[in-house]
Structure formats: structure tokens, C-alpha cells
């Protein structure tokens, strides 16, 4: 069976998803502060790599990358609540794009699998 990445429509769909996802994150006061002063283009590129991975697309984004990328944020208080917010917004975007509930659950599970890396545990 085709991966969710392919079923959603491949790279063009991820481009749409990453904008919507990032817009949700920037509008959510639980997590928005962590994006202050962050270069939007670089951030979008990283989020695209992340979404490509959780959608099962052609990416080799590793736990090691996730750990290094968030180490600085953990010292600023990044915790499980923030990861929950990310997974919630991922689900919201996928629903807008017409993904099935089973796919949304699968994406949440993949995102959850890097939780400990993100939080440096």
C-alpha cells in the first residue's frame, strides 16, 4: 500500500501541510514563544523534513537530529505539553487535508516515537 505521504499527494501536499502546521504553531500561545526570533524559512525547511518523515516520505530525519535540534529548547523548558501541542496540530492539519482517522493515529504514533529524543531523555 502507498505511504500516507504518497496518498496525501507527495511533496506539493507536504508544502501545503507545513504552512498550515507552522501557522497553527505560531498562533498557539503554548508554543509560539519558542519560535521568537527564529528564521521562518529555515524553520519551514526543518518542519518540512519532519512532516515528510512522519508521513512516511523519503526522509532520513533521525532521532539524533531531533535531539540536537531541540537541546537548546529543553533548557528553556520544553516539555511533554509542548510535544502534545505539536501532535494535536499535526492531527488538525491532516484532518483539514482529508486524511483518515487511522492515518492520523499512525502519524501521531510516529511523532510520539521521537518524543524522548525531542525532550532529550
Amino acid at each position, binding site marked *: 500500500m502507498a505511504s500516507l505521504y504518497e496518498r496525501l499527494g507527495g*511533496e506539493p501536499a507536504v508544502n501545503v501541510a507545513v*504552512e498550515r502546521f507552522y501557522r497553527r504553531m505560531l498562533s498557539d500561545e503554548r508554543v509560539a514563544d519558542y519560535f521568537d526570533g527564529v528564521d521562518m*524559512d529555515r524553520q519551514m525547511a526543518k518542519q518540512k*523534513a519532519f512532516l*515528510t518523515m512522519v508521513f512516511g516520505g523519503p*526522509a*532520513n*530525519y533521525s532521532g539524533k537530529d531531533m535531539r540536537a535540534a531541540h537541546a537548546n529548547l529543553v533548557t528553556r523548558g520544553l516539555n511533554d505539553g509542548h510535544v502534545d501541542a505539536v501532535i494535536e496540530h499535526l492531527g488538525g492539519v491532516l484532518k483539514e487535508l482529508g486524511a483518515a482517522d487511522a492515518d492520523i493515529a499512525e502519524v501521531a504514533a510516529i511523532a510520539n516515537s521521537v518524543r524522548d529524543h525531542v525532550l532529550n531523555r
Partner: protein
Amino acid sequence: MPILHWQDQAIEAQPGQSALDALLNAGVVIPNACRAGACQSCLVRARAGELPQQAQAGLRDDQRARGEVLACRLPVSEGLQLEPAGALSLAGELVLTRRAHPTESVAVLHLLPPPGLRPLAGQLLHLIREDGLSRPYSVASLPDDNLVELHVRQVPGGQMSTTLCDAAPIGARFGVRGPFGDCTLRAEEQDRPLLLVGVGTGLAPMVGLARDADAHAWRAPVTLIHAGLTAAALYEPEALLTLAASWPGLDWRRVVLQGPAPEGVEIGDVVEVTKRGYAAAPGARVYLCGDAAVVNRLRRALFLAGASLSALHADPFTPTA
């Protein structure tokens, strides 16, 4: 064994290897992360060689046109020559032909370009002084003007701005690199509204873009917002006055953060004024230029208001020592 050229270095690669792996094996430092064409960390520029579509997927048109390419998605092939993505090529010399001072602190320069240099309105040119000092400026003119118009604010103690605004005589020559950037008109989008926002001398590319839209008989509304901290930062270049006189439909607004404001100038936050402008023309293609802090606030606010980053073009002025 295919040979890959990195700047002036010849590197032996394995058949089928990606350019990224070949460069890394040879000890060249190339930032990289996803190795799948998504994160764009490994962006390089090809001087020569075959570039498959997959190696340029996700890049902007101007990047593709410059030969920029993702090293991780680029198989090594014979004749491939790569260099850092930021490497610039020298385009020749510009000759200063006219200097006007619409206000005390701003100079509008006209320069004669070397043959073959026809920058589009909104692109960037790097001017290079005799001693090698270099600064980027946005182009306010159109290719058919056969001159390059630049707007320069005189920064107290600023080396290049003092040369350009005051010290350089008519006839002075400057090196030039470029043109760069994608702050240019999409001529085929005549039915899409334009929102042009210039802060201070960030007005320059907006004048060029508005003139370009007029030259293409733009059908959708065009709004040009010129903003400054105080009225002293605003000015009215000749080309814009001429354009506004012949195009009553051009919505030209001026806004200052701190009063007093002369007649026709609004007092307010340019971010709020621009957000209202976007709400009145949703889906507009947006161009932003000027002080980096303001431009970055504008970009974020418009993105959150629903503008796609692919329709948001920003040229922030980054301060130089």
C-alpha cells in the same frame, strides 16, 4: 571514476554516488541534515553539468535559474562543476550619471549599466567601491529604462552611503555583482492584487514593481504603502510622482509611527496598516523591503493572516558594520 569539480578542486567520486557524499568524503564541509531533498541544508550552485529535476525540486524559480541545486539529490556525472551557493559573479561596472536628493538624507541615483546587465525591478545589485567595499541595493528601474535607479539613505558615518550620497562625482564608476533575488513581478498574474510595502528606502523596489505592473496593464488593485518611523524617513521619488499622476487607480499610502504627520500621511503601525491592506485584498502577492526588524514582523503577521510564504517576498536590510 567520475570526476567532480568543487571550485578549483577535482574530486574522484564513486559511480552513482551523490554529490553530497562525494564532497563529504573529500573533506569538503557541506551543511546537511535530511539527505532527502527536504531540508535544503546542502544547497550548492552548479557552474556546469547535468541537473536532474529531482535535484532542484522545491527550489524557487530564481534559484533554479542561478543553477542552485541540492547536493544530496544530485548524482555525480561527468562535467559537474559545483561551488558554494552564495558565490557571486562579477557583472562589470556601473557609471554614476545623475543624483537627486528628494530629501536631505536620501539620494536617488541613476547609473549606466554595462552591456548585458538588465536587472528587473525589485532585484538586488551589489555595488563595489574601488577599495572593495560592497553593499546591496534594490533596483527601482525597469530594464527598458536603460539605466539603473537606486535609492540610498545617508547613514551617519556610513562608508558606502556617504560615497554614494555625497562624495562620488558624476561619472564615478562602481563594480557590480548581480542581479539577485526574486522580489520581481509575476507578469502573468495580472488579475492578482499586489501589496507593495517599503520601509524607508525600501520604497525603491516598490516603485519599480508598481511601474512594472503599470507597464503590464495590471487589472487587479495595486496598493503601495510607504512607511517610516517619522515623516523625515518618507520621500517622493520623481518616478513615483509621474506614475501616480498617470495612474489614478494606484493606491499609494504613507504611514509614520510617530507624528507629526504632513497632509495625506497616516500615523500608525505599518504592520496594522498592511494587515488591513491584506484583508481588503486577500490572496495578494506581497512584497516587503526595508529595515529587517520591521520586515520580519510584517512577514510573520501576513503569514498568520493567511498569506502563503510562496507569495510573500521579503528583502530585509541587514545592518552592516
